[in-house]
């Protein structure tokens, strides 16, 4: 229906991660960050990866982005082995990653400039993307003049400027306050609805992952493995009201259960062996001291 749809190749943007393992260091000090993870993102699909902090979900994204090489297994994009970063994969970082020395528009133009596009084409593309993000009036500002939410919106459209096949997002709203975050999620679904490219979205926020995704992978505590894969049957386009629907609530409950176990395990591995029920019984009369 929209012009952008014509631009997206439905067969492009297939992320396939197979039997991936990542070990940092070697010998006694070796830390297994990710163990035997397989997952995929189909063309045009929005997939979230959720798990407790330190479970290796960001490491996984770094591999797909091409920053880190896996110890075992492989990551492929459209059948091609991923070996280094490239503009076919747009990345939005958790930290603000706009170049402070470039104006907002020049930031969005950056990828196109690297690709050798002409000034006039860069300008037109950047301005239309900024308009999409509702920030056209700030095109000549510097990033340091903007709020966190504005910076991340620019980060998203900057990553889209080079027409990547996939968008990799590493907790992009993690640094924002709750209100801004909710609005940003809506903006993101709207932008995604326009571009229909594959998205791999890392988060530790359950509601956020449900609201945005078609599918959610839940990871275990370190060493990170895929614990569960959950489908989100909510209709598109997603609306803010949907978060009050019973389906949404059920999914939240389900995910909460899955993640709580892992969060506990991540904080104190020994708790996992005793089980959650054991946790409750022992703390009761004698206080916390017995466990810690």
């Amino acid at each position, binding site marked *: 229906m929209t012009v952008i749809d014509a*631009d*997206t190749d439905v067969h492009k943007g297939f992320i396939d991660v197979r039997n991936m393992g990542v070990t940092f260091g070697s010998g006694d000090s070796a830390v297994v960050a990710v163990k035997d993870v397989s997952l995929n993102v189909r063309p045009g699909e929005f997939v979230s990866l959720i798990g407790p902090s330190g479970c290796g979900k960001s490491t996984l994204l770094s591999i797909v982005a091409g920053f880190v090489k896996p110890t075992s297994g492989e990551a492929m994009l459209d059948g091609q082995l991923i070996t280094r970063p490239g503009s076919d994969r747009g990345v939005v970082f958790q930290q603000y990653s706009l170049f402070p020395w470039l104006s907002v528009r020049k930031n969005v133009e950056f990828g196109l400039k*690297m690709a050798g596009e002409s000034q006039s084409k860069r300008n037109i593309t950047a301005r239309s993307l900024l308009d999409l993000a*509702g920030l056209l009036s700030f095109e000549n500002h510097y990033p340091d003049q903007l*709020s966190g939410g504005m910076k991340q919106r620019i980060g998203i459209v900057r990553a889209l400027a080079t027409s990547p096949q996939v968008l990799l997002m590493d907790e992009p709203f993690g640094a924002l306050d709750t209100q*801004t975050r909710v609005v940003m999620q809506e903006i993101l679904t709207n*932008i995604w609805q*326009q571009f229909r490219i594959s998205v791999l979205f890392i988060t530790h926020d359950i509601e956020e992952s449900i609201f945005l995704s078609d599918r959610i992978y839940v990871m275990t505590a370190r060493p990170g493995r895929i614990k569960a894969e959950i489908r989100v049957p909510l209709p598109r*386009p997603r609306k803010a009201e949907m978060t009050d629907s019973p389906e949404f609530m059920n999914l939240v409950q389900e995910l909460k259960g899955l993640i709580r176990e892992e969060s506990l395990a991540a904080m104190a591995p020994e708790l996992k062996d005793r089980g959650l029920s054991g946790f409750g019984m022992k703390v009761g009369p004698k206080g916390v001291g017995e466990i810690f």
Partner: protein
Amino acid sequence: MGSMARVNVAAIPIPGVDADAGRVFETKMTSPPESASNEAPDELAAIGLAASEPVVPEPEIIPTVSLRDVAQAMLKHITRERMITAGLACISIGALFLIWYLGTKYRFEFYIRFKNVPTPAEVFQQAAQVGLSNKFLYNIAISVRRILTGFAIAIAIGVPLGLMIGRYGRVRDLFMPVVEILRPIPAIAWVPMSIMLWPNNEAAIVYITFIGAFFPILLNTIHGVHSLDGVLVRAGRCLGANEPQLFWSVILPGSLPHIFTGLAVGMGVAWVSLIAAEMISGQYGVGYFTWEAYSLVDYPAIMLGMITIGVLGLACSGIIRMVGILLMPWLAYASGSKR
């Protein structure tokens, strides 16, 4: 491939996020002051900046006498801070002259001896007499030429080398041992060696100036690369920048603030080195002028030489600071900026 299609994005109404809605959202975001975090003030500032131009105090002006009032009000508003700054600067420099004046007037002598120190008036006379003579101006021109040559070579070598050392571990391993050995040797200690090394005096003095400026520029450039946020380099690579592009478009501009710190420090050390070299081995130059004045017992000329060095040094660092502001306008908005 999709370029033509992308161009039309602006024209498409987007459900929920069309341009107008986006702007409404902008204002909504700013309005609740309780929206926690340090974000709100930033946004207000941003919007305030965007809106500041059209909001000329038009409604308040009654077009009879008020234009003058506004002008006066503005004058008052603008100069208040600056008047204090300028006033303090006058007090600072005035105090120096006052001590000098009083010391020489009463021939103060208690451990410090003002006996032979010329009075401000004598120096002023000297300046009026010598100040515009060809010989004096020639000395200044020679010194400035030496500084600029040595400083330019220091930038041309120090900045690229610093970027390479900062970026590549192997380059660092190769160059840093030499740098660490040569760095503690002050430029003045290079004077005898330099005279032996170079075919003429002029090259030797330029070399010493270069040595003085080189190390601060090099080390600050390395530091600039190291303190560059890694996420910016990663963002550059994700956006398709190859290594040369990354150098030119990310690492260099990202290190620029530290490079300019290096230039400011380097310029100071370059002057110290230049004057020392001129005093020891020079012909012409402000340092030579000052030392010659001492040999000829021409005390007012010593002071004139010193003041000239001070003014030239001030002018050079002022130029560097101005170029820095022009090249890095974004720093005005950086967090922690005083501007």
